[in-house]
C-alpha cells in the first residue's frame, strides 16, 4: 500500500513524531509512506512527494487550517486523488459542534478566522472517512482511530525487572536524573491543570528535586494571547518562580524521550477539550518510552481503557502529594506498574498494530 500523509510538520509540535513512526513502520511492513510536499532537510527520516497519483490513499492529519497545503499544491493534491481515497484524521475534534470546556474550544474564529460550519463543511467535502483519535467520537459519522501509538523499540532504558528499574531510578546505580520532575508540552490549554499540579506538589519540593518544563510560552502569557483576549496560554510566573521551576524553550520531537528521562516523574496532561472528547495525543504513549515514572493526570476511565488495569497505580487521583510520597518510598511497586503498562501498550497500542488498523479502515 502506498500512503501519502498530508500535514504541516513542525519539529516542535503536533504529529511529527507519530507521522515519522508511520513512515518507519510502514516501510517495515512492506508499504510505502511519504509526506506530501517538497523534500525537507528538517526531518530527514521522512520522505516527501508531490507525485499524488503514485499513491493509493491520502491521509490528511488536521490540527489547524495550515495542515492543508498552500496553493498551488492543494489543487494538485485534491484534483489528483479522488474523494473516496482520502481520509481525514481530526486531531483537535474540529469535526464536532462548537465545544467550550473552561477556556478551551474546538473552534474559535478569533484564533484562526473560522467558524464551526467551515470545519464541518470542509471536512465533509474533502472526505467521507473522518477519524478521530478517541475511543468514543461524538458524531455518528466519525470513526474511532487512535492514530498515535506506542513504540516498544523506542523505550530508552529496557529494565529487566522492577527492582533494577527502581534501583536505577533511585540513583543507586545511575545518577543521571538531575530533575525530580520533567514535562514537555507547549503552554496551550494546560495551565489550569499545571497550576493545580504544581500547587499540589509544592509541599514536596525539597524531597522531589528540581522541576523543569520545556515548551513554548511558559515564561509569560504571550502578547498575541493578550491582544486576542485568549486565555488558553495563561501562566503564573510568580508561582513558577516560587517553585523554582526551570523553563526551557521547546525541544524537537526526537529529543523528547531523552529529556523526559532526566526527571524521576513526568506528568501526562490532556487539555480540557481532549479530556472531554477522550482524545489522545502522541504524549499519551510516548511518555512511557522515557526512563521516568509517568503520572497519569487523566480520568480513571481513560487510564483503564488506554493503559490497562496495571496503570491505575500511576494515576494519583486527588491525592497527588500522597501518591508521590509513596512512589518515592516504594519505587519498585510503581516501576512494576510502568513495566506492565509498557507490555500492555506494546500489545494493544503499538505502531504496527495501529498501522494495520489504519490499513483496514482504508480498505473498508
Amino acid at each position, binding site marked *: 500500500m502506498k500512503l501519502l500523509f498530508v500535514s504541516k510538520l513542525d519539529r516542535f509540535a503536533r504529529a511529527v513524531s507519530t507521522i515519522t513512526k508511520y513512515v518507519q513502520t510502514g516501510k517495515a511492513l512492506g508499504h510505502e509512506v511519504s509526506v506530501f510536499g517538497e523534500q525537507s532537510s528538517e526531518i530527514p527520516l521522512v520522505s516527501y512527494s508531490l507525485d499524488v497519483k503514485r499513491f493509493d490513499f491520502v491521509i490528511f492529519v488536521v490540527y489547524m487550517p495550515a495542515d492543508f497545503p498552500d496553493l498551488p499544491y492543494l489543487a494538485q493534491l485534491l*484534483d489528483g486523488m479522488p474523494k473516496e481515497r482520502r481520509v481525514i484524521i481530526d486531531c483537535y475534534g474540529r469535526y464536532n459542534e462548537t465545544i467550550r470546556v473552561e477556556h478551551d474550544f474546538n473552534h474559535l474564529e478569533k484564533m484562526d478566522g473560522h467558524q464551526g460550519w467551515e470545519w464541518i463543511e*470542509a471536512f465533509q467535502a474533502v472526505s467521507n472517512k473522518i477519524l478521530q483519535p478517541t475511543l468514543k467520537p461524538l458524531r455518528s459519522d466519525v470513526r474511532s482511530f487512535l492514530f498515535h501509538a506506542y513504540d516498544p523499540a523506542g523505550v530508552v532504558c529496557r529494565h529487566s525487572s522492577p527492582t533494577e528499574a527502581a534501583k536505577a531510578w533511585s540513583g543507586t546505580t545511575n545518577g543521571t536524573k538531575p530533575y525530580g520532575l520533567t514535562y514537555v508540552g507547549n503552554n496551550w490549554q494546560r495551565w489550569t491543570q499545571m497550576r493545580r499540579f504544581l500547587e499540589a506538589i509544592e509541599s514536596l519540593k525539597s524531597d522531589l528535586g528540581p522541576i523543569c518544563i520545556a515548551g513554548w510560552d511558559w515564561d509569560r502569557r504571550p502578547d498575541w494571547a493578550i491582544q486576542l483576549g485568549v486565555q488558553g496560554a495563561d501562566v503564573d510566573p510568580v508561582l513558577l518562580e516560587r517553585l523554582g521551576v526551570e523553563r526551557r524553550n521547546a525541544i524537537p520531537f526526537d529529543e523528547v524521550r531523552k529529556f523526559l528521562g532526566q526527571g524521576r516523574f513526568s506528568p501526562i496532561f490532556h487539555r480540557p477539550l481532549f479530556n472531554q472528547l477522550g482524545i489522545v495525543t502522541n504524549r499519551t504513549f510516548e511518555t512511557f518510552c522515557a526512563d521516568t515514572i509517568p503520572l497519569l493526570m487523566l480520568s480513571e476511565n481513560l487510564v483503564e481503557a488506554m493503559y490497562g488495569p496495571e496503570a491505575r497505580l500511576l494515576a494519583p487521583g486527588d491525592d497527588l502529594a500522597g501518591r508521590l510520597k509513596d512512589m518515592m518510598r516504594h519505587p519498585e511497586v510503581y516501576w512494576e506498574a510502568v513495566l506492565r503498562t509498557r507490555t500492555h501498550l506494546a500489545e494493544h497500542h503499538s505502531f504496527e498494530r495501529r498501522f494495520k488498523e489504519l490499513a483496514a479502515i482504508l480498505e473498508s
Partner: protein
Amino acid sequence: MQMGAAGTKSMKILFVTDRRVDAGSIQAVAGHVRAGNELGHTVAVYGHPEPNFPGVRFSSDVAAFDYVVFIFESKLRWLDGLQLAHILSAVPRKQRAIVDADGMYNQRITVDGYDHNHLNDRERWVWLTTFDYLADKILQPTLKPHEPGVIPLLFYGYDPTAQVKPATDAPKRFDIVHVGHNWWRWREVSNSLLPAIERVRAHLNGICFVGLWWDGVPSWAWDLGLEQAFCVDVDGLRKLGVQVKPAIPYSEVIPMMSAGRVNIMTQRPLFRRLKILTSKYFEIFCADTIPLVMLDPDHAELVYGPAGRDLALYDRIADKLLDALRNPQKYRASIEEVRHHLAAHHSYYNRVRELVKALEG
C-alpha cells in the same frame, strides 16, 4: 444547469473573493447578483451572509453551483487551506474559473521602473502555477489579454439603476472628488494631477481624496518591499488644500462621488498598460457629477464610445478642470451619450451574459 422560466438555461455561479467592503471587486459582484436575478441565474459569494454587504447573496453550499469563479486581485493567499479544501473538493477543475483582476497571469511587467505585477520570476511562477492548477479558465477584465489562452471578460459594468438623479437644490460639497486608494497612483497624481490643480487652485473650492493610504505609507509596506506603491506626500496634499477621507464601503462610493461637481478617475500604470478595467470606470458615470477619466482618448473611446474622448483628462488638465467647473452644461451631452453607450454595451446584464458564455465555452 436548469432551464429558466423563459426557456433559457439557468446557471448557478459562486464567486469566491476576498470579501473587502471598501476595496476590490465587490461592487461588480453585487452587480452580477442583481443582473443574474433578473436573467434567471443564481449568483452568490462563498460564505455566510454578512450584513455589511448589501445586495450580495452568500452561500457555502459549494456543490449546489455549476461553476466557481475565483476573483484574484493583488494577493495570492487570501484563502486558507480549510476554505480551499472545501471548495476544491466540491467542484472539479473544469467547473472552476479565475477572474484575474490585477493582470497577474502575465509575463513580468514593470511600467516606467515603478508599477509591476510581479516582484521576481519566482513570484510569477507561483502565481501562474497556482492559476493553472486551480482553474480551467482564466478571465481578464481587458479587451486584449497578452497571454495565450486567457479569455477577455470585462467583468466590471454599468448599472443604470444605480444612476443618481441630478441634484437641483443642494450645492455640492466639493469641486473635485477623487475616489480610489493610493495604490501605485502617486506618480501620476503627483506628476500630472496635483501640479495642474496647483495652477488653478485659487479658482477651486473643496477638493477631496477618498481612500486608503492618502494619509501615509502603511507600516507593513516596507516589509513587503512595496513602499513605492503607497508613496505619498501628506504635507504636499495638505498645503494644496486637499482633504483626505478614509475608504468608504462600496455602497457609498456613488453617493460620495456625487458630492463632487467633478470627479477624477486615475488608474495605476500597470492597468493602463494592460488596458484593465475596474469598477471605477463605471461607478463614476452612475454618480451625479462630471466624470473626467485620466485615460488616453483612444482608450476612453474604446470603452465609453466616441463621447468618451470629451471626458478624457489627458492633456491641458488644469484648463479642462476649470472648464468643466465653469461650463458644466457643455459636458452634459457627452456624459449622457456615454451613459447610453454604457447601458447598451457595458451593463451588468451584458456582463452576466458574457460570463455565462465564457464559462460554457
